[in-house]
């Protein structure tokens, strides 16, 4: 089945904002601007985090994109949005309006996740505990490879 990935359990899918392949991170639910600000003071943690916005509004997490989180998951919204526009610029794995399956109603903090954003749909997986030491099938940029067109380089800024 297309939803199976060795070492991972499929939990649902939504709209993928930009096709950036597979990315892993640890889930953190961010529900308020204050929580977002707290996370912004820890740039290293952001890079390892898949930010989950449980609420209906998603735009408030857009500033986090500047610090390159591992990914973002929302339960509302579409790629044609402020979050989508900024996410496309940074080439971040974003799955919007995630529809959780298999009886799940939320993603607890600390859950190891994989976001598969190959096409228009983004699939979300939980890393199986039994395969915690398996090689990571991620598609982050390899040293020496050019970044995709329209995507900002890692840590780069654009001079006006």
């Amino acid at each position, binding site marked *: 089945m297309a939803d199976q990935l060795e070492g991972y359990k499929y939990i649902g899918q939504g709209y993928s904002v930009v096709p950036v392949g597979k990315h892993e991170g640890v889930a953190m639910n961010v529900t308020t601007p*204050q929580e977002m600000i707290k996370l*912004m003071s820890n740039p290293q943690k952001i890079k390892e985090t898949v930010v989950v916005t449980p609420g209906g*509004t998603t735009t408030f997490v857009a500033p986090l994109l*500047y610090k390159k989180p591992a990914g973002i998951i929302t339960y509302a919204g579409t*790629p044609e949005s402020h979050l989508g*526009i900024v996410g496309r610029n940074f080439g971040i794995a974003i799955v919007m309006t995630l529809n959780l399956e298999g009886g799940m109603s939320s993603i607890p903090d600390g859950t190891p996740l994989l976001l598969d954003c190959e096409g228009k749909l983004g699939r979300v997986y939980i890393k199986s505990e039994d395969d915690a030491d398996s090689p990571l099938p991620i598609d982050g940029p390899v040293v020496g490879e050019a970044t995709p067109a329209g995507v*900002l380089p890692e840590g780069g800024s*654009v001079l*006006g």
Partner: protein
Amino acid sequence: MLDEQAFLVLNALYLKKMASAGDLADIAGLRADEVRAMVSGFIEPGWVLDMGEDLLIQPDGMTEVQAYYRQTYSALSQTEEMERWYGRFETINTQFIKHVSDWQQSGGDTRAQERVIGTVERLVKLIGEMVQQVPRYDNYIRRFERSMTTVDQGNADFVCTPTVDSLHNIWFEFHEDLLLLLGKERTE
């Protein structure tokens, strides 16, 4: 309560969440040395965190900004005129987001870019109707016009690249500002 200049600077940081003192000076229309002096006064009470290259607004700083909005704009925010004006903004806002998304996904198509610029020009006119009630909104007109000129000169990064003062960045901040002024929540 914050005085007007302190509000301009702290509000600029509130809208961006994280920025350099130089960025804040440009947004607020003030000199960089003025802004740096003000910022050191924001750090001491814990309103702003100095992260080295950038400043990060803190929850207490957000509270100060929100209080200023409430005290300064509560009467204006309840007028029918403002409610009608905001309705017109929402229409243009929906169009702008679509046009920028289309521009991105078309790889920078010229006609898509013209539609983006057309929407920004409409917003600039709309903001012009409010400058008498909210004089600081003149700064948004200045920034939009500067970025439109830069795009017209061939620098497409100023359409929506997040790391420069692009049209999309300015629009995003303006919308946040407007929501705070009106006491509204975002619906997206």
